[in-house]
């Protein structure tokens, strides 16, 4: 397992409020990691920094074998480098069909020229069918994404994340609003992805985190409070104090 992403000494503040405070974090490839923490611990800001949405005030964020810094890169460059993100609130393109949504996410050249001259290929169609099958949307491909139920949109978004074939998957509260059976399926998909790639899951639901069976990082007030197995961190007195005990 080699290190894929390394953050060190990262801080960011909004109007004087330190959302992230001297945070250091690393994840290898392949690896599964769960991130837990109370509201306002900086989980979403953490993802915003990696994906280029928020620029940190200080610190380093290094990605890949060539140790490229993600800090000077735009959101789209970071995405093309291999960082995929699933948002907490499902954001799919509602005015387009499920198939078009998948096609947009599918790993292909992204420049306007390539896209303009893009021709549909049987390989691409097969890939979309396979992804739709995997997330249970095979029957829904011709439908408008806006007509899907909330749960189906969640699945579409997970499918789109997989379609990008990223090396690092950032997944924000995947289990929110899902039935127990769906949660199990989500777990399976994420565990399968973590066989090859790095997966970071932000989740509130302890049962879900337990099923992921991976190393856990606890964030609090913008920095790492504890790290280790779920049992290890849940027995840590600091963690009990700030988070679980309340």
């Amino acid at each position: 397992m080699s290190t894929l992403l390394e953050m060190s000494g990262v801080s960011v503040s909004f109007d004087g409020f330190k959302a992230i405070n001297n945070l250091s974090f690393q994840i290898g490839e392949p690896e599964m990691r769960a991130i837990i923490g109370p509201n306002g611990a900086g989980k979403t800001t953490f993802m915003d920094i990696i994906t280029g949405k928020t620029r940190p005030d200080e610190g380093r964020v290094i990605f890949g074998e060539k140790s490229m810094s993600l800090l000077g890169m735009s959101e789209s460059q970071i995405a093309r480098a291999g960082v995929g993100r699933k948002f907490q609130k499902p954001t799919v393109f509602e005015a387009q069909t499920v198939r078009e949504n998948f096609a947009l996410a599918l790993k292909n050249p992204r420049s306007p020229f390539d896209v303009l001259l893009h021709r549909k290929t049987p390989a691409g169609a097969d890939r979309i069918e396979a992804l739709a099958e995997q997330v249970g949307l095979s029957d829904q491909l011709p439908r408008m994404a806006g007509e899907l139920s909330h749960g189906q949109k969640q699945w579409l978004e997970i499918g789109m994340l997989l379609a990008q074939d990223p090396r690092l998957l950032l997944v924000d509260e995947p289990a929110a609003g899902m039935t127990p059976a769906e949660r199990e399926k989500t777990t399976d998909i994420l565990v399968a992805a973590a066989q090859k790639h790095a997966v970071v899951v932000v989740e509130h639901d302890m049962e879900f985190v337990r099923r992921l069976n991976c190393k856990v990082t606890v964030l609090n007030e913008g920095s790492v409070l504890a790290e280790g197995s779920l049992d290890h961190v849940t027995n840590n007195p600091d963690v009990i104090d700030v988070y679980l005990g309340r």
Partner: protein
Amino acid sequence: MTKALSKTFLIRHPSTLWVLASLGLFTLIVSVLSEAAGTGLISTSFVKTLGKTLCLCLIAIAMDVVWGYCGILSLGHFAFFGIGGYAIGMWLMYARTEAIVAQNLSANLIPPTDSEISDAIATQIFGVVGASEFPAIWAFSHSLTLQLLMVLLVPGLLALVFGWLAFRSRVTGVYLSILTQAMTLALALYLFQNDSGLRGNNGLSGLQNIPGFEATSQAVISLAFFWASALALALGYLLFAWVTAGKMGSVIRAIRDDEARVRFLGYQVESYKLFVFTLTAVVSGIAGALYYPQAGIINPAEIAPIASIYLAVWVAIGGRGKLYGAIIGAVFVSLLSSYFTGGSAPDINLGFYVIKWTDWWLVLLGLSFVAVTLLFPGGIASLFDKLARKQ
């Protein structure tokens, strides 16, 4: 290969086929009924009005692509239209004045030198603004080829630079609209100045007289321009139908609906916006270059901010996000506008007040804009879609 491709493209997009067939039929009918064909049921001036309307349709579909598909509410596309008109107008004025000057000077016993000819042309063109020398921007005006190139290059480069600055700074929504208004206003104000080099508020005139075709009647010239406008509209429609279909269409509609999400998928949103903005600006320039020889005159008032707002109104009334919607809007509103403002609409006498349509047309247009936006957000085109779905 290309033929097979375009065939399947048209079959997969039946609305494109319908539009092109209607346009062809319309062109045929107008040609047969025009004065040039001898029947004269349609007057030459009305052929010009129809030809100009086709040019307005062309800029309307460009506006629809940039606004309806890509979500950039540009309120400055008429600037590109006007630039196209000025670019072709410069050659038209130069070449015609040159012919007149050559004729006048040919009576002289001593043959005039080149600089005398040049000075005489300049005096003729710029005398009206008190100048007698060619400004630098007229350097290419002697060459039709170069000025045609300007029709494409000047709107394209202006859009490229403006778009690059605006999109790179992530200016979006209403702020971008205001910026585009500022651009077209600044351009209009600049052109209003006498020392702008484009004859200030006089603009360029006599553009209906095509150099080299002095012997040809306006009836024939007007029909030729009508055909050229119809061809340009057909090609423009095909181009935009192709761009908005397939994956490019999918990406630009996605940018319209949620551009941040598109970025996280790895697409460089700014490049796509710049591509759409520049392409539509170039097409607008072509539309203007075909429009103004039919109008005969261009002046800075043509690119005042209000013109670009009208353009948005046409597209909104016709139906955003559908190319044929933009055409419906442009035809419907511009022909209705020439009916009401042309003085042929009868005044309505209410006893205590007389409604004069020349004054009240704008109120009617404004009200219908509000009504369409509130009641039929899909515009007139959505009524067609409803009919098609019922069948």
